[in-house]
């Protein structure tokens, strides 16, 4: 999966799960603020990442994810390893 496909897939499932406009999912935007995530929502974030990308991020993986750019990098890294 290349970067464009990762971005498109991410926009689709995150906008569906967290009920936001896909256009707000942009590299520079803050993931937590944009999706309005609380601590419980991170559990659901893990579920939808597993469903859509086939890996389950750890708490440590998500600690470094502040922007969507960080998110896309995490997915690239994990998929390469996989």
């Amino acid at each position, binding site marked *: 999966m290349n970067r464009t496909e990762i971005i498109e897939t991410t926009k689709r499932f995150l906008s569906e799960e967290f*009920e936001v406009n896909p256009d707000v999912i942009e590299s520079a935007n803050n993931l937590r603020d944009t999706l309005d995530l609380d601590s419980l929502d991170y*559990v659901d974030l893990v579920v939808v990442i597993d469903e859509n990308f086939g890996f389950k991020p750890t708490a440590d993986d998500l600690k470094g994810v502040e922007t969507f750019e960080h998110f896309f990098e995490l997915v690239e890294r994990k998929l390469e390893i996989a």
Partner: protein
Amino acid sequence: MEHRVVITGLGIYSCIGEDKAAVLESLQNGKSGIIYDAPRKEFGYRSALTGFVKDPDLKPFLSRRERIGMHQPAMFAYMATKEALEQAKLDIDFLEHHETGIIYGNDSTAGAVIETIDKARARKDNTLIGSGDIFQNMNCTVNMNLSTIYKLKGINLTLSAACASGSHSIGMAYLMIKQGLQDRIICGGAQEINQYAMGSFDGLGAFSIREDKPHQASRPFDRDRDGLVPSGGAATVIIESLASAMKRGAPILGEIIGYGFSSNGDHISNPNLDGQFRSLSMAIKQAGIHSDEIDYVNAHATSTPIGDLMEAEAIHKVIGGKVPVSSTKSMTGHECWMAGASEVVYSMLMMQNDFIAPNINFENPDEASQKINIIPTYTEKNIDCFLSNSFGFGGTNSSLVIKKFK
């Protein structure tokens, strides 16, 4: 000092209507909400009959976070509570700043639990169950969801008492307000309606198998009744001290004057005349009225052979044979955990609109029901005071006496 306790809001989401206006029309026309649900047959049901309500779309009203912990009991209860609060002129801003409680009846979350277990078994990793399931799974799901959505700051507990849950919720809230411990409490009952919820009950052979005529299947007190029909939804009753209601300028729809209760201390599923007698007698005694002041009895009668017989005997013994009696379960089926609250809503609509809803399908009495005055058709009647019975598995009984506010 004892406080007078009044009703200021009613809400209903049931198989005979998704709001009070629709329900009123059904009650007046003797309309049944029972259907034949074919998938139940495949599931293994002896009887595929059920009252039917659809899952409401809550997206226009609630955020994702507010919805994610809701399964049927909480979803249905939200719809009923929304309607009741609007009638009572209560909004979130007021509730956040004025202590208000919630005592809601619920006694199962089978559908939610089974869906969660299915997920857990498939994924073999509990982290992948998601964040909402635990709040759907717990029996206090209605309370958890509604108390956070409406920012409630008072008493907050779920009342589980089988098919008397909704009635006891009103009774216990009545006692708290009467004692001055709370100004207002959201009460009610919710009942899930999925096939997981009622399979084991169906297995007892307690359901009507009149599957070819769903609208005629629930026939409380009729000689040829052959069992109950399960049903569900939710009903909410807002109760309040008279002083609080008057101060707010809230509509005062009725006054609760008596609550009776008892436990049979006997068989786990069979009814018991003594238990019912004690519950009815206590409610009337506490109301401080003579039994002939009761203008209408909304019976618990579910359409089971023994249960209806026992209740007819109890009504005859305590109130006599003249008082008009009907069981709205003839139209709704047995709304179980919700029934005690929904039947207060149905009776309140009758009292407000001067009629008695028919006990449909009552064609021939048996030896017990011939002793009481069952109303088989729509009847115009001024009701100043009514009594509502609810009896549940485990021998839990509840009776409420409610009158017009004067």
